[in-house]
């Protein structure tokens, strides 16, 4: 063994890897014929490779694929939403705006539980009831929130009752519009109309201060 050139073992591996030159292969073969020990090493190497190579193919258990699919993160719907947002940026912005807007509107509907009434001379307020006394004339609009309005006299303007009731006596006269609002939708509509009115005052300039 000591007499064997060091190259021989390299040649063996090069041979097994299939990247040996012809000259090297010839040298190796010549050496193996003459050297019993090296021949044994070479055989040992080829045998162990053949041994490992004869391993049967191992298959994954039947439940394998389902196991993987069950472990995948559920991001399908999220991905769908993201895709939609990316392809419709304008609609997304509009939807966002509407959501935020309606949120502020609804929150103010919920918080607005207090009784309030437009201050006008000669209106009589008794607890949660507002009275337009008989024979009197109220000049201007009346808005009552969370209360009852009784009209026995005359109102020269619009009458609005939000979440309350409006009783009109036979003597009552309302020159403007009279409306009662108690549904969410009506209230929203009213709020929108009012906002529009506040932003664009009508040319008549008859907007009354609510104080």
């Amino acid at each position: 063994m000591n007499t064997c050139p060091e190259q021989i073992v390299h040649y063996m591996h090069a041979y097994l890897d299939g990247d040996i030159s012809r000259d090297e292969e010839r040298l190796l073969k010549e050496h193996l014929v003459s050297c019993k020990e090296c021949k044994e090493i070479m055989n040992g190497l080829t045998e162990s490779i053949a041994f490992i190579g004869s391993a049967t193919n191992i298959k994954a258990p039947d439940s394998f694929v389902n196991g993987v699919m069950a472990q995948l993160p559920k991001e399908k719907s999220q991905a769908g939403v993201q895709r939609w947002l990316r392809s419709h940026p304008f609609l997304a912005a509009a939807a966002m705006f509407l959501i935020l807007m309606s949120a502020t509107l609804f929150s103010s509907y919920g918080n607005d539980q207090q009784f309030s009434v437009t201050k006008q001379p000669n209106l009589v307020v008794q607890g949660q009831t507002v009275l337009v006394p008989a024979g009197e004339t109220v000049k201007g609009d009346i808005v009552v929130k969370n209360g009852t309005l009784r009209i026995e006299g005359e109102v020269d303007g619009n009458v609005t009752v939000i979440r309350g009731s409006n009783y009109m006596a036979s003597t009552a006269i309302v020159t403007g519009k009279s409306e009662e609002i108690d549904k969410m939708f009506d209230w929203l509509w009213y709020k929108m109309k009012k906002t529009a009115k506040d932003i664009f005052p009508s040319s008549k300039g008859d907007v009354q201060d609510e104080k």
Partner: protein
Amino acid sequence: MDELINKRINEVLKGNQNAFEEVVTLFQHRLYQVCYRMLGNAQEAEDIAQEAFVRAYINIHTFDQKRKFSTWLFRIATNLCIDRIRKKKPDYYLDANVPGTDGLNMYSQIAASGELPEDEVERMELQERIHYEIGRLPDKYRSVIVLRYIEELPLQEIGDILKLPLGTVKTRVHRGREALRKQMGNI
């Protein structure tokens, strides 16, 4: 093959999770086998191979479609196996059954973790013996030997999977072969 895979991958990228099922089906046995040979334990192999697929799914957008998908997938799996081997405490289950393997039981489980008396080794059946000998190889050599002689991959591809230069792969294959020859010695 590669074309089909890339088509499925594009579907996965578009959010179609079911397209990934086909990818898993195509590669499950090869990936499981590599994990099983490297870890020596069926339960662990199933866990790790499944985790490798899950990670592939999560990171699918980082896969470069000009490259070979199997190489990328094998890299994820071998990295997980190597991590697992490093962290491995002696927590093998001697009395547990090994599902999905015929004739591989207790021996195959001990294989990765220790030596057996010679007479017991001699009584092993061929497949048990193969598994045992692979398990006895040092980790460094085991991965290249499994990829080279079980998966029958070219040396260059093994280098791509393990992110090793070709020269290093060759050296490890040589030493792995040498180690196998020595540990089997007298069959």
